[in-house]
């Protein structure tokens, strides 16, 4: 590959190997590659050499180093200009804050009629279910439940979703959303969820529901999110599409 041969420096050779494995998908997008220690041991090279090999790929944006977690493969990404999208946008009361995500549960399960209908698949098909807490400055803002067909995102169980937003995952698997149908309701929440969201005496939350479609009209995601109404609000641009 690109002029690397056995006489090239070892770090260049290793870089070539990792690059190759990313391009064949052996190292899947969103998933951690073997640790630097493992690579060093496997090939009998110095850890600093491994680091030098990976640094180049981090700089290129093919890999992402996450403190204390490892080195992750970054898939293809599509630039989006949010100002050019209509639809609801969530805004945090009081403006800027540091976002965070905590994955509470994730599993592979049978779709069942209720989610088969929403996702346009067979009840016997498998889906991924992800439950997560969205944070702003460490405080809970919303609890989200995401349902996606397994078939579309085979490696999703291995993707670190605290690092990669679902949006990135869709890009990685070339299932980029082109359209979504969103609704906003106010619903009472159960005690457990109220406690999780630190609602205090408040019992109502903003329920945001979203069906996301890709180019061929297939639903790639059904999402439900319960939002603290004191912490965020939604804005929408409206335009006469007729």
């Amino acid at each position, binding site marked *: 590959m690109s002029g690397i041969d056995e006489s090239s420096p070892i770090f260049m050779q290793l870089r070539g190997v990792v690059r190759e494995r990313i391009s064949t998908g052996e190292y899947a997008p969103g998933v951690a590659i073997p640790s630097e220690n493992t690579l060093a041991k496997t090939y009998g090279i110095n850890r600093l050499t491994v680091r030098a090999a990976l640094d180049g790929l981090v700089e290129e944006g093919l890999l992402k180093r996450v403190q204390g977690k490892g080195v992750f493969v970054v898939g293809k990404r599509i630039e989006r200009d949010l100002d050019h999208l*209509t639809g609801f946008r969530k805004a945090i009361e009081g403006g800027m804050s540091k976002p965070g995500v905590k994955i509470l549960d994730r599993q592979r399960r049978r779709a069942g009629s209720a989610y088969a209908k929403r996702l346009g698949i067979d009840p016997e098909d498998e889906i991924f279910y992800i439950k997560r807490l969205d944070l702003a400055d460490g405080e809970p803002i919303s609890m989200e439940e995401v349902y996606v067909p397994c078939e579309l995102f085979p490696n999703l169980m291995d993707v670190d979703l605290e690092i990669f937003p679902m949006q990135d995952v869709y890009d990685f698997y070339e299932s980029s959303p*082109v359209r979504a*149908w969103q609704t906003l309701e106010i619903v009472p929440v*159960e005690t457990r969820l109220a406690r999780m969201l630190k609602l205090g005496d408040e019992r*109502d939350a903003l329920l945001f529901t979203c069906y996301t479609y890709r180019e061929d009209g297939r639903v790639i995601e059904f999402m439900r999110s319960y939002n603290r109404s004191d912490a965020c609000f*939604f804005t*929408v641009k409206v335009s006469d599409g007729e």
Partner: protein
Amino acid sequence: MSSRDTITELIECYIIDNDLRPGDRLPSERDLCKQWGVNRMTLRNAIKRLSELGVVESKVGLGTFVAKPKIVRNLQDTLGSSEAIAAAGGELERIVVSSRLAEADKHAVRQLHVMLASPVFELTRVCIVDGERAAIESVIVNARDCPGIEGHDYAVESLYGVLREEYGLVATRGTERIDVCKLDEREADLLDYPAGTTAFFQEGLMLDQEGKPLEYFTTIAMPQRIVFGTELRPFSEGEGR
């Protein structure tokens, strides 16, 4: 998943698999408990959850029924609320609370971008959807280009209809904010709910065809029967057509 969540989903599946329609009755609690091997308490919790989500409706002594779907108010269509509610299959009546021509105050200047003391038309109405008090709509319209706007009966006429037909003004685009509020005494009184009840608070500015501010509105809507909906798509698609 908790057993409550499992049962909640089982009920949803039951409705789909048996093709139950709004108004159709679910089997008795006793039968469902037996069929799924769950205790009565768990089943009741699941039914309560689904009724809070507006999927089913429990009627004392009669059983549990599939609920009528909430009215989806699509914010993308730039329809006035009367057209939107009609499009969603609801029946709308309105009571005019106040309707008057006024001079723009500081609030109007800020929201509608008009000069202080320029003419504005202020209208507040209560919407009754399918016989239930559902929303309070307040609007301020820039009245400079619409003389005589106050002379219509907005209990029966649609404001967007009057603007379009009399003055050739159409609300074409704008930005809205949707938040949650608690009804104050006056709002509670107009809507016939207890003060402090949770409701949608919607506010926005709509521009006319030329991009000039046409109306600033605030709406307080009861969430029991209404859902706001919007389609996410590239903005350019809807523009310039």
